[in-house]
Each structure stands twice: as structure tokens, then as C-alpha cells.
């Protein structure tokens, strides 16, 4: 049954929710090199020194959403004798990532100003 709520307006919002953050992290991981789903989850965990541990089941709906928006592309490749779907960043994904970085920095600066840090 549809639950009633106002439409999402995240495109215009100057802040990022946790979903937007996961999207940004995925794009940032893929900026370095193409990866498959499991390696993306591992990279996020490793680079954040274990602090960021998103529930990995939600990774694929997010990856597929990014793919549908044309921000990443995927293709099946053989890794160690097994078929894996590898994701790579597109030009449009790179542009979105750079924009997301700017938004994120603004958000951090704003929160820091409120907390009285790094002014």
C-alpha cells in the first residue's frame, strides 16, 4: 500500500541524508577503479577504518539506482573463475561526485560552525 508523504526534493536540499551519503561513497570508491559490489563494501569499510558499516543488503538497490540514473555502468566479468558484475564510474557520475563533495564540505562547515569547531 502506498504510504503518503511529500515528494523528495533532495536535488534542491543543501544537505545530504544517509542515502545520499552512501551514493557519494560508492561514487568515490569507483572513482579510483572499477569494482564489484563486495569490493565496494570492503573499500568503504577499509577506507573509513571500520567506522562506516552500511548494511550491505542495501548496497545493491543503491548501485542499481545509480546505474539507472547513468552515473555508473556495469558489466559482467570473470574474477577468479567466477562471474561478477563490475561497476565503473561514468562522466556524469564524476560530475555528480564532484558536486556532492562540494555539498558535503558545506554541510561539514555548517555543522562545525554550530558546534564551534574549526571556525
Amino acid at each position, binding site marked *: 500500500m*502506498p*504510504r*503518503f*508523504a*511529500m*515528494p*523528495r526534493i533532495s536535488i534542491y536540499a543543501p544537505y545530504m541524508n544517509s542515502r545520499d551519503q552512501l551514493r557519494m561513497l560508492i561514487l568515490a570508491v569507483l572513482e579510483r577503479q572499477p569494482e*564489484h*559490489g*563486495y*569490493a565496494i*563494501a*570492503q573499500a568503504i569499510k577499509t577506507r573509513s577504518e571500520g567506522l562506516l*558499516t552500511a*548494511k*550491505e*543488503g*542495501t*548496497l*545493491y*538497490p543503491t548501485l*542499481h*539506482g545509480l546505474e*539507472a540514473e547513468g552515473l555508473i555502468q556495469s558489466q559482467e566479468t570473470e574474477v577468479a573463475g*567466477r*562471474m*561478477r*558484475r563490475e561497476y565503473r564510474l561514468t562522466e556524469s557520475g564524476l560530475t555528480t561526485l564532484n558536486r556532492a563533495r562540494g555539498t558535503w564540505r558545506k554541510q561539514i562547515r555548517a555543522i562545525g560552525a554550530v558546534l564551534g569547531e574549526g571556525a
Partner: protein
Amino acid sequence: MKTDIWLAKALDKIAPCVRPRLEAEYRAHIDGMREEGLSESEIVAQLGNAKTVNESLLRQYLSAYEQKVLEGRSWKPWRVWLPLGGSLAITVFLLLLEVPLQTIWAVPAFGLICSLFFGQRTKNMGALQAVIWLERRGRFVGISFLLLLQALSWLELGHIQPSLLMPMLPSLMPMFTKNPLTLEEKAIRSGWLPKAKS
């Protein structure tokens, strides 16, 4: 096995057209975790709540029921173009007979509504993309249009009966739902309909 139960719950009711891809990706992910030495319970804990994942997947992809609904449709491209072209032809004909536009405005509007309604039943990707575009962005235009007509009616300008437009209201309802994707978009995302060539 706990992971099999998790997979069954996470992929519950997902359409057969998309399920194999999702299942293959989740199985590869689970294999990776096993190779890392994680136990079944740890794997399930890291994957998260299967019900939440299932809800998230059903928001993006067709459910088995929705796929059946789409398969049950009769897909004919003329269903889009005939009401639109027909209503425009009638409008031009009436204009040639010098019938005032404010009297016959409902003819092309009705044609457009019929075209949109039947447009959801075509595999003509151009038409389908137009329907999706209108469904997603046209709601705001639709509401403004209704409000404008209502205002004109109150001001007693033109021969407008807003009650005729009431059938349009249900089409605006998806604006207030949490699910941002239309059935057609889910069908494209699930691979049931081909992606439009860019």
C-alpha cells in the same frame, strides 16, 4: 542455511525478470564474506534486515504481480497516437468551421488524457518516455492547470466546467506517494522493457 532464508526473504515477490540478476549479485557477495571467514550469523547481520532490503528492492523493481499485470496488457502503439491525432484532427476541423476555441478546448484535452492513459500500454519507447516524463513532471503542470481552470470558472470567464476535469485527479495522486518510480520506470529498470536509446 541462514543466508538462504535471508535471500528468500529479501527477494520475496520480486519479478522473475529481475530476480536472477539480484540473486547472483547477493550470492557473490555472500561468497565473498564466507571467504573472509565470517560465520552465517555474522553474514546475515552484516547484510541487514531482509524485510527492509525487500521493501527497498520492491520500490525499484517490478514485483511478480506487477510483471503479470504488464504481461496482461495489450501493447499497441496506435493506442497512443490515435486519440492524440484524432482529437487534434477534430479540433482543426471544428476550428475550420469557426467554432470558438473556448468552446472546443476540451476536445484536445480529452485526447491528451486518453493518449496518456493508453500510452501506458505501449512498447513504443518514444511514447512511453513521453508518458513517464509527463507523469513525473506533468503533475505540477496538471495541478496548476486545474487551479487555473477553477479560478477562471470562479471569475466566470469562458465556458469551463471544472467537474469535467475531476477524473484527472487520481492521476495526480502518485505525487503524494513515497514511491518515486512509476510502473513503467520500474519495468525499464527491471529489464522488462528495453531502455530508450540515448
